[in-house]
């Protein structure tokens, strides 16, 4: 089976610590893989390796069959990335931000098309021409989603995207992810949010000290079971 996103014995060492200990992972089209773990568990390192921002110490990351380390520019064609806090450019409007990032990905959209992507992502129509400096975090995250959607990326890499969002914005964000998943986008989401993982995830992985210690289909667990499993791995007393 051809995986959109794959890691084979992916390892990252820094001078004084091992950030990722031989990760093996396969994610297919339309799948939402949620990676839970504490700060410093290796979630962001994994995303940075898939993005090609850091080089693996050993092993390899693959996007759409291409090894990331040796095809850094090429693999960017297939992926989109949304960080924890999408800041964008505060002096540009939402539409200008989207136009900029889309043009960098090779898409030259009309104003109507840009508007369509932004509204589809949940941004109010009257906000698209306002400067992003005045947006809430939720609104910025929606522009981030619009950037990803407008790129027609096969893989979406999310680094704690719902952190700091209010419940309504978080819920809207989840709906957007489910829509993208239904359209065939593979989503890899690093998060602390157990409830949101259970809600949107196809599979849920738990990472501890650079090691993927467990992977469960989301359908096999309810929210409480998932929380207990997670806390067990984190060695926190119930």
């Amino acid at each position, binding site marked *: 089976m051809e995986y959109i996103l794959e890691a084979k014995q992916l390892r990252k060492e820094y001078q004084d610590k091992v950030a990722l200990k031989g990760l093996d992972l396969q994610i297919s089209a339309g799948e939402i893989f949620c990676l839970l773990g504490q700060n410093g568990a290796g979630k*962001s390192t994994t995303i*940075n390796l898939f*993005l090609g*921002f*850091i080089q693996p110490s050993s092993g390899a990351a693959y996007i759409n069959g291409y090894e990331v380390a040796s095809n850094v*520019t090429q693999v*960017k*064609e297939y*992926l*989109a*990335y*949304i*960080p*924890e*806090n*999408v*800041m*964008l*450019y505060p*002096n*540009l409007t939402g539409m*200008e931000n989207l136009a*900029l*990032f889309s*043009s*960098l*990905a*090779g898409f030259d959209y009309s104003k109507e098309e840009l508007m369509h992507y932004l509204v589809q992502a949940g941004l109010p129509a009257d906000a698209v021409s306002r*400067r992003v400096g005045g947006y809430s975090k939720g609104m910025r995250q929606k522009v*981030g989603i619009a*950037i990803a959607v407008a*790129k027609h990326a096969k893989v979406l*890499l999310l680094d704690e995207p719902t952190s700091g969002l209010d419940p309504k914005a978080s819920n809207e964000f989840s709906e957007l992810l489910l829509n993208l998943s239904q359209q065939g986008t593979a989503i890899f989401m690093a998060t602390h949010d157990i409830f949101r993982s259970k809600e949107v995830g196809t599979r849920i992985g738990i990472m501890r000290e650079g090691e993927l210690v467990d992977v469960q289909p989301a359908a096999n667990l309810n929210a409480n079971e998932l929380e207990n499993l997670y806390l067990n791995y984190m060695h926190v007393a119930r």
Partner: protein
Amino acid sequence: MIKSIAKKEFISTLRDRRFMALSIIVLLLLLAATVVGLHSYNTLQAERDAAQQTVNDQFANSEDRHPHRMAHYGSYAFRPKSSISFLDFGMDSYTGASVFMEAHKQNSANFSQAQQSSSLIRFGEMTVAFVLQMLIPLLIIFLCFGAFTQEKETGTLKILLSQGVSLRQVAWAKVAGYSKVVALVVAPAMLLASALLFGKGGFDLSGDVLVRLLLFIGSYLVYFFIFIVLSVVVSALHQRSSTALVMLLGIWILCCVIIPKASANLGATLYTTPTKAQMDADVHEEVAKGIDGHGSGQDERTEALKQELFKKYKVSSIEKLPVNFDGIRMAAGEEHSTQVYQEHFDELTDIFRKQNRISEYASFLNPYLAVRHLSMGMAGADFDHYVHFQNEAEQYRYNLAQGLNNIQTTRLKYGDKETRLSSDTWKEFQPFVYETPQAGWALTNHIVSFIALFMWLALVSLVGMQLIDKTKIA
């Protein structure tokens, strides 16, 4: 890709009120410096033109005089201001504006603006060059210090790069965007200066002025580009905007304040200039070893000259010579004293040149010094242009003195101190006209700075971008 990011940087900057306020202040300073420089140029040039015309008229219409009295009456050479010097006063404010040209003596230029101004001039003048050399780099630093650090701090760099853009493309795009912003600040002043230069009378307009202006503007464009690339590279190498800003301000202080002072002090320490009193004493001592034009004619050197003439004209007494021995003795004395003065002047000039060379070579450490030398050179306000004027004035003085000695030799009899020649005689002498040397000459004098400026351009563009490739993203 580069075009999109460059456009974003340009638009973002234009929408940044703090930066726009700063830019408007710098632009107003630049425009004010241009207008003030032009006013100063017009005033000084008009004064010098009028003064030169007056002394020329006075010389040509001088009353009936003995030719040697006329040689002592002398004339003045007023140094005309170079057309572009209203943009960069260079050394003009400190070097003299006029030279008194008389027999037997090589006077230095006097009446500099600094001599005639209060001590406030020591704080420097608000010239276009000052704004371009010192303030625009500061503006560039405030514009570019966050080029990469802000992207890192906000996380937008990762989003940018995830779109398939390379770090180098982002860097060049930012350089392009910031260059456009800087052009927006500098271009109005440069256009105003060009319009004033070519659109208004009173300037010595020629192809050479155009070449000088283009080289002047070109040098600054390269200088700004170096600062923009340098600022972007420094920003890329830091994780925080505050540390990038501190680093860039440190570089600015080093380039614009410390190295120029240090190189000037080093030059003055390594190559000491003699005091004026010492130089005058040395000249006086050596001149005394030659023929004294005013002497009694009893010394050995005068006797040897006399015997040489007797032999040449096959005569046995001064009275039988077909030429006036007084005039010949004057000419011989003038030749000797001029040679002595010129040797000492050349030695002194050589010391100053060696001092300046330290500063020129320091251009390899500092692009500010490179552009400063080139700017002064193109504006015709550097040391070389000053020496060129001094030499031209000296050449004229020598020819004038020897021309009058020749009149004494050929038209007056030996021992005749009473005859007075009419003003028609003085009209035979062409007035002093100074031609500023060509731009190529000025560029040759500053070839070290020219090479240094382009070395900096290559250094920041090639090495800087290689460093950016290694920037930590995560």
